[in-house]
């Protein structure tokens, strides 16, 4: 729905960052878990079968981690309009969010260790509608994120609570 002409995309290095995050998650959580399940399963099934299954799963996970971030990147667009912030996200489950400027309670920028390597930041926009960030924009160059944060948080108005 957001047309490519007027909407903005994330920083291109986001794709690499997401890949790296997925690989790290795979190494730290995914592979040990699968090996543990494999060991448990090998008491019931033939060991070769279990090894093949685990290897296949790991390979699939690898391929997925390689390609999925670029799909995600292409699906993500955002746009600051006069009255609101528009965020489009999701490859399979699409989501378009509109957050009026005057309903923004506060705006955060956050940076994790991997994001720091790539010089990127996340922008989290909070409204009064709950605890979680309503619209969040991952993968912005840090100075862009900070500029956007200042731009969004400067406006005030009735917060409707």
């Amino acid at each position, binding site marked *: *729905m957001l047309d490519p002409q007027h909407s903005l995309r994330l920083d291109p290095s986001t794709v690499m960052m997401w890949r790296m995050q997925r690989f790290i998650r795979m190494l730290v959580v995914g592979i040990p878990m699968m090996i543990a399940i494999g060991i448990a399963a090998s008491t019931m099934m033939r060991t070769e079968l279990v090894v093949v299954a685990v290897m296949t799963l790991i390979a699939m996970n690898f391929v997925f981690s390689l390609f999925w971030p670029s799909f995600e990147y292409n699906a993500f667009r955002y746009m600051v309009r006069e*009255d*609101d912030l*528009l965020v489009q996200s999701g490859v*399979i*489950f*699409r*989501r*378009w*969010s*509109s*957050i*009026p400027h005057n*309903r923004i309670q506060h705006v955060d920028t956050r940076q994790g260790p991997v994001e720091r390597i790539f010089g990127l930041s996340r922008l989290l926009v909070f*409204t*009064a*509608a*709950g*605890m979680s960030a*309503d*619209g969040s924009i991952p993968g912005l160059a840090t100075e862009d994120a900070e500029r956007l944060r200042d731009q969004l*948080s*400067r406006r*005030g*108005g*009735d917060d*409707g*609570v």
Partner: protein
Amino acid sequence: MQNDFVISSLDAGEMMGSEDKPENKSGSIKDGPTVKIPVSETETDLPTEEVARPDTVELDDPPTRIRPVPATLTIPIPDPNDPGPESTVGQYLEDAEPEQTIGIYLKPEAPQAEETIGIYLKPEAPQAEETIGIYLEDDLGEAEKTVGVFLEDAPPPAEHTLDGMLNPTAIAASETIGEFMVPSNETGDGMLEANTILTPDTPWKGLHPVSLAVNLLPRAWQTIRSMWPILLFVLIGGEGAGMRFIDLFVILLFTLMSVWNTFIHWITLRYRIHQGRLEITSGLLNRQARTIDPIRIQNVELVQNLFHKWSGLVELRIDTAGEQNTEGLLSALSVEEATTLQNQLAAVGSLAAAGRDEEDNGDTIATMGIAEILAYGLTQRTIGTVAVITAVGLEILTQAGPDVAAEFTGSMQPTMVIAAFMLAFVASWAVSALTSVFRFFGYQMTRFQDAIRTEYGLTTRRKVEIPLSKVQLVRADEPLMRRLMGYGTLLIETAGLGVIEGQVRQAEGVVPMVEQPDLGRVAAVAVPHTDVDPWSTPLKPAHPRSLYRAIVAATIRASFLLAIGLAYLDDMAWIVFFFIPIAWLGAWLDWKKQGWLVTPTAVVSRRGFFNRRTFILSRDKLQSVHIVQGPFMRLHGLSRLVIRVAGSQISLPETGAADTDWLYTELSA
């Protein structure tokens, strides 16, 4: 910025302590007390009265706008060394045009090194009452600095004139001058309106002495509840000699702890209103101080449990958005003190009770008879209760002895199982009816000018007051049973989010049983700014293709049941094939009853057949708008609109993608 006139003269640069309004800082407020204000000889120079107007003021603006006093105007500030702690200075300025009035009021009063300055601006436009009050208070001695900005019924031009200096808080257009007046005892007739905007500071106050007795048992229960694993372990786990002594010791310890806690709470708890904020401190070793800004208060509840009732005291509970609530903190106060505090809080914040006349007893909107309360209890969902009762029954059996239990379960016939379930159902109905009688006895809902009050309860009497401006949405629950009896339940949700023991709690007003023809009327009371009655207006249906999706989903769900049924039932297996048509019927009924409506002021969404829910929300409460579209929805060209308000979110039925896009644009505009 055009407002660099008065405030600049008041050394106000540091007064702007309000962090929610960063734009305040951007105002051209300069430091330096360069201007002097003459000390007026008379105390009758009130801004609202037409007296003593210096001719130096020249205002040539259109009456709807507030413009700064020209730079030539000098407002002398009184000499700080000027004696007279109660000295009051008033200056009144008025333009040649009779419609426009600006009053400036400065009042340095020094009770304890505190200086208070009030500015009051009031342009009287010909067409309507437009009032803007600014009130600044500077506590010079302390690091704490408070600025209160009060804006009432500001028309758009006035907002622009102030140019971001003031947060253009939307205040209902129905409000008129004078409603912000504090029902105060201190600001007498001779004082000024500016002074009445802020509730005067009150001295520290404590709890009522009888609260020691009132709180003892609830507190003991609280202690036991938080420590029950240890208690259970000690009391049941130990066997043999000497254990009896330990048991006794533990019980004694717990009793002493509860008494000590209650005593400490009573002796240390102090509250006061200071600089327009409520401060509550408590605790001896673990001191706790809480400051509550009345503007943040969502609602104030007066609660009476059995002990309160006997002693004629009340507990005051305050719900604030996003902060912990004050359950058990202000227990117990005398009724007068609680009411006074409630009124004081209301006066500063946007709570409703402030402007209420003494005689305003409100209109009774809804009451409930005992038959209705019983009907409510009987139509509550009972599955959970049945499970609990079955579990308790089994537990009793096991306690009675393993032999008895084995004998009982061994000799059970299918008919007996069914009978047992019937019994459990009847018992759960009885429990449900009884609890609802206790909870809702003597229910009454009253509407005041800008608040709703509900009052109910047999042993614990609750009085919930919800300011209309804080209502986020109204939800009508009409479960099938209740609907067949001709009733529905209304829930009024506010943004009073508080996290208690990890659970998000919402302040809610409830109208348990409303007759169907009355639903629209009662709902309209809670959301007065909307103009829609979903029970008399036809709603727009969900998209036809979403029926197809619903049927597919229902078939998949029924197939699971079917598989389980086929696996476990032998000769009765044919029954399960009725699941699928029943599921289809359910899906169709559900789809048929869905509906939505978007009017210029409101959004309505209705879903569900067996447990029908209707949401009505005022569009000015909307926080953000989202479109959600799954892969199958995309295939059918459908999508769904989700609207978030503070504290909850509602989703509309599935609509065609083009419709949803249009709605999205409409609502996010």
